[in-house]
């Protein structure tokens, strides 16, 4: 249903109704931002990357194959743009943000309650690509096929990485909650 609505919107945009793109932006901005934030670790970079990704997607609309889902295509652009941004900024910055303090997690993500902070703290300890995988899997309920299309990883690799990431996340959540409530 949403896909056919997206197709309709895209056809209108391609016919000259550029303002209709705002509907697509509003529909997908939060998840796109979540993916970018998980990969980059800060709001400013994530917002810039998502803005760039939406502009790139707009420019690429004439060549977009409409049998694919717009969201999958957009998230792939977000994923790739985030990787490029990370490469550009260097890996050294990551080590500083690897294990932020609890209050910093609240500032960066807006998490307010214990469960939100717990989740963010556990996620921070996962490698960036695994953060993106679990976000797509649990939050977007993406299939292996979709994650393969977004990340460009082979399906077998997605399965292995996702299994590892889910297992690690569960362990981390257990450890974090024990630490928080002990």
């Amino acid at each position, binding site marked *: 249903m949403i896909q056919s609505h997206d197709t309709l919107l895209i056809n209108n945009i391609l016919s000259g109704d550029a303002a209709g793109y*705002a509907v697509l932006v509003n529909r997908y901005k*939060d998840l796109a931002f*979540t993916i970018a934030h998980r990969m980059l670790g800060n*709001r400013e970079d994530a917002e810039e990357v998502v803005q760039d990704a939406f502009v790139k997607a707009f420019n690429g609309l004439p060549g977009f194959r409409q049998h694919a889902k717009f969201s999958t295509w957009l998230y792939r652009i977000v994923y790739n743009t985030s990787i490029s941004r990370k490469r550009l900024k260097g890996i050294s910055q990551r080590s500083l943000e690897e294990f932020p303090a609890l209050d910093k997690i609240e500032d960066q993500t807006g998490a307010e309650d214990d*469960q939100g902070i717990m989740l963010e703290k556990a996620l921070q300890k996962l490698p960036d690509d695994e953060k993106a995988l679990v976000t797509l899997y*649990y939050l977007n309920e993406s299939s292996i096929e979709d994650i393969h299309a977004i990340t460009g990883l082979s399906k077998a690799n997605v399965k292995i990485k996702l299994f590892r990431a889910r297992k690690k996340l*569960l362990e981390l959540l257990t450890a974090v909650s024990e630490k928080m409530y002990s």
Partner: protein
Amino acid sequence: MDELLANDERLKQLFQAEGRLMTSPGFTDRVMERVESIASPKPEYKPLISRRVWFLIAAAFTLLVAGSWLVSGTDSQVDSQYTKVIEPIVSFFKGLEFNPDIPTESLIIITVVVGSISLLLAIDYFLNNKPRNLIKG
């Protein structure tokens, strides 16, 4: 594996409730500003007077100055080289009597300024078009 599957639903709920991050207010507007600047075609500015017309004006003025100098230049009895060139033009304009109140000094200044601009335009036109014509052959 079983433990993972058993916890999947719980993790899904946790992500749905807490894992979605929000963009800052005005995000959509900022994206749309960039999108609309791409989508709206940039207006093409055309000069009111084309380069070709400017060239014609310049050429006409140059011809007028040159012609007036040839017609009345022989009568002038002046010493300096400078007034030798300017005087015939001034007398030509005076001869037209379209505005007899214009002082000679102003006419000299106008003639020199307009003549220089015309000459520069003609040179510019020539330099810009000559190589292309030469290539075309």
